[in-house]
């Protein structure tokens, strides 16, 4: 019965791929709507399926394809897989509802059909990656996921920025696939099987190499610093629902991969945990510091995704460290924290990307300095964005807090780790972790304040109108989920069979309401009810202008200065003169720009080296047939000699 649900879900998604493709001939809205409805149907079915498996603990397995022994594709859904399918289903459903309206505002005629088809293919590939019962299937669907998401990023391919972003994304995602493939092949060489089999603790260098390859592959996909650069390029370039899917769900698939391999294949060493923890902490801190500097709303959200993935990696790193220290209870807590944060981040980040998409649609700009005043013009969108901002700033009683406290608690209990140096290391990471969450609160005060509050800072922003109902309904579902999951965190864990030592957020919520009622009641009977509307006090200025407002740049300026060692700037000052004494100025360039550290010191050198290598190789290819014949002849000769001597 449950297995059938999986087939129905996959069938829906396949229908969603096929329908818009066969109707490409005419530009009709109906085909796209049907396709998106298929996505919604598939989401509903898959959500039911995953909830059933999560609650019952049943495992479904189905052999999809087998050619020769060993090369086998199976679909296995256990509780871990079901959990991630739930994330995929919930987010895809909301995104599809949003897109029914959003997609009609995009340019591109029947290209929009392609967008629908690729989006469905993308969702299908993510479901299949998670459901894969073998490492072979995992790798194959991983590549399908990479390819289909590339088409989604390239939607506006005629834009030069998009072209650049697309190539960048393509290279990074292929690198990720390459490393995953290497990891899987090394693993196959060691075990002789593609199944997820648990390996004994003896760590051979091959297994370590395999883990490192997989970790690298997953890190690139998840956007762990320093492999993060594709996120702030790809997200602004792609349509908002796609950003929501990629940031909300695709990054979690990498998390799933890491957790799956750590749980079911490897017996991790302590230093693996330290590596994951260090990578996670670095991403969390640097991600949010870069996010604060960003003024493109979608790039800012992308950097904030890097931060949140960092938090998830911190949880996984703690899990490995505690497991190696033989502290299963704390390890379990950290892992639950990491997984719970994956779910929560999927919800609030998709919510933020979708509402940001509405804002970009309404104001025709992505620069938050040209927004402002939208709270009066788009009241519902602003309310939804607000829920997302509170959740991502990890404020109680919403869901972001519930998962961050679940990672905080193992940190606070790390006294139990035997090695004193490790204790100190963990406390340092704890301090940085706390810094991250405080900075993210600052970042989202800035985001909400600049986008929605005060006066509009551009004409477009002043003329903005509220978006249609489907573009509110999709995010509203996610916002509702953020609130419910936050309030019922303890109860939901109990339902899944875990007792977690986090405070009962429902009680906190009730207490907050009680205090609000108390205040309101007291004021109702005592306070004056006269309200007057009068201009903001401007220190003697005759009228208030948008120009005098505190801008987003201004808001983050103190943090910019405090962390100025991290935001490296390059100052260039070149002048030429007509005379030798340097008196009569001819021309000059002066610029101050933010140094893109990772790009200039890591990505470009690697790219230049590979270009040089390619150039060296290309010298062999001179395009002359005789030369190629010579190559064949020489090769045959060498092989004959080789075989003669050695065989």
């Amino acid at each position, binding site marked *: 019965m449950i297995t059938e649900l999986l087939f129905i879900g996959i069938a829906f998604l396949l229908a969603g791929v096929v329908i818009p493709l066969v109707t490409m001939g005419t530009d009709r809205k109906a085909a796209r709507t049907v396709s998106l409805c298929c996505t919604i149907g598939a989401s509903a079915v898959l959500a039911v399926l995953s909830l059933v498996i999560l609650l019952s603990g049943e495992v479904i397995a189905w052999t999809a394809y087998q050619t020769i022994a060993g090369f086998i594709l199976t679909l296995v859904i256990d509780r871990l897989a079901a959990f991630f399918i739930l994330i995929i289903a919930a987010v895809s459903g909301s995104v599809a509802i949003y897109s029914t309206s959003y997609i009609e505002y995009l340019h591109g005629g029947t290209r929009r059909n392609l967008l629908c088809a690729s989006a469905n293919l993308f969702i299908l590939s993510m479901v299949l990656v998670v459901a894969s019962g073998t490492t072979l299937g995992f790798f194959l669907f991983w590549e399908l996921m990479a390819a289909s998401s590339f088409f989604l990023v390239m939607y506006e391919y005629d834009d030069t920025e998009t072209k650049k972003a697309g190539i960048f994304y393509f290279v990074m995602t292929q690198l990720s696939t390459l490393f995953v493939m290497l990891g899987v092949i090394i693993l196959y060489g060691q075990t002789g099987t593609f199944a997820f089999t648990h390996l004994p603790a003896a760590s051979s260098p091959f297994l370590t190499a395999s883990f490192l390859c997989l970790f690298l592959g997953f890190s690139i996909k998840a956007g762990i610093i320093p492999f993060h650069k594709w996120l702030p390029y790809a997200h602004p370039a792609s349509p908002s629902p796609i950003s929501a899917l990629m940031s909300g769900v695709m990054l979690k698939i990498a998390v799933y991969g890491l957790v799956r391999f750590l749980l079911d294949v490897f017996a991790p060493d302590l230093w693996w945990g330290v590596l994951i923890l260090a990578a996670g902490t670095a991403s969390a801190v640097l991600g949010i510091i870069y996010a604060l500097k960003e003024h493109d709303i979608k790039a800012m959200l992308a950097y904030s995704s890097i931060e949140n993935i960092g938090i998830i990696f911190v949880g996984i790193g703690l899990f490995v460290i505690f497991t190696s220290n033989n502290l299963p209870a704390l390890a379990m807590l950290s892992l639950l924290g990491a997984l719970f944060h994956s779910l929560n981040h999927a919800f609030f980040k998709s919510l933020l990307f979708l509402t940001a998409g509405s804002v970009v649609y309404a104001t025709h700009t992505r620069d938050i300095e040209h927004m402002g005043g939208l709270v009066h013009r788009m009241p519902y969108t602003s309310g939804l964005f607000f829920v997302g901002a509170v959740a991502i700033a990890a404020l109680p009683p919403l869901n972001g807090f519930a998962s961050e406290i679940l990672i905080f608690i193992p940190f606070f209990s790390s006294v139990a780790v035997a090695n004193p140096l490790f204790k100190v290391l963990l406390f340092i990471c704890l301090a940085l972790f706390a810094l991250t969450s405080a900075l993210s*609160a600052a970042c989202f005060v800035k985001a909400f304040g600049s986008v929605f509050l005060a006066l509009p800072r551009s004409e477009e922003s002043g003329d903005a109108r509220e978006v249609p109902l489907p573009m509110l309904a999709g995010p509203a579902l996610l916002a509702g989920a953020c609130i419910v999951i936050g309030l019922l965190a303890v109860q939901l864990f109990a339902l899944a069979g875990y007792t977690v030592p986090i405070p009962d957020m429902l009680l906190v919520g009730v207490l907050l309401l009680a205090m609000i009622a108390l*205040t309101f009641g007291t004021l109702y009977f005592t306070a004056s009810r006269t309200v007057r509307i009068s201009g903001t*006090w401007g220190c003697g200025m005759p009228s208030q202008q948008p120009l005098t407002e505190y801008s987003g740049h201004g808001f983050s300026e103190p943090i910019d200065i405090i962390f100025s060692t991290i935001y490296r700037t390059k100052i260039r000052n070149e002048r030429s003169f007509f005379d030798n004494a340097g008196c009569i100025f001819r021309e000059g360039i002066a610029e101050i720009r933010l140094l893109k550290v990772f790009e200039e010191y890591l990505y470009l050198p690697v790219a230049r080296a590979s270009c040089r290598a390619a150039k060296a190789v290309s010298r062999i290819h001179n395009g002359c047939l005789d030369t190629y014949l010579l190559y064949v002849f020489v090769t045959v000769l060498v092989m004959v000699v080789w075989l003669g001597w050695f065989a």
Partner: protein
Amino acid sequence: MSPEFILYLVINTAVVLGIAPLFISLIKKVKAWTQGRRGPTVFQTYFMLAKLVKKEVIYSPHSSWIMRVTPIVNIAAILVAALFVPLVFVPEPVGGIGNIILLLYLLALAKFFMALAGLDAGSSFGGMGSSREMSISAIIEPTTIIVFAALVFVFKTLNIFEMFTRSAAAGTLSTPTLILTGISLFIILIVETSRIPVDNPETHLELTMIHEGMILEQSGSNLALMELSAAVKLTLLMALLINLIVPFGLATTLTATGLILALILFLLKGCILAGVIGLFESSMAKMRFFRLPSLFAMAFFFSTLIIIIEVFS
């Protein structure tokens, strides 16, 4: 939830609301004395709150619902946070009330709303205040969390109620680490309640103000709520310090005499601490904003030292 706990909720809220304005006026009084002035009476803050409540509320035409809900959400979050720090009577914790991490984040919730309200009216003063407040609260956060971690380390519990019970059972000044922690907590108190040398609660100059800048657009009963919540926040942080370092007299069972005794002792200890804060504020000038990170870095290394001492002893 037991009747005892419900009674605790009522008592704690009543006590904190009752005495919070007193401590604010006391600090002002001490500062006035050191400047050679007589200063207002110690009941001045009560009078001021009563006056503000009777006045009309003025909203900017550009302000939104954020401005209207912030005072109420702010005081509600701070009052719930105050429930996490028992002033006079410590009951058995229920459902994670008293969790030290949640306490910190409830204060952050209040701050989040306050900072948004600062931006809401489009005034550059409000924006300046919000920006500075969020920056300062971000860079003090590592220190706060390490101090809290040290507390968790020493008391082996995440719950403030249990910490207080344990420190009350152990008597006073139990370990040297606790004294060190007390000093760190004092720094956090100064920073979190926007006092000199971090912020000056008495000026309205754009160069110096942080907290006052954020609430510049508030008026009438809304301003009263903002002022009251700042007072409650001061009191709850003072209570955290007092009941951890000098817990004697703290009631752990619910008796009328015990409660009254605890209340009197708490008032006494609170007045002394308020005096210390007043003297501390009078003894130095406000620091330049960008000099603050080095002050915080000092506090941070100080609290890390506690952890290192604890780990290796």
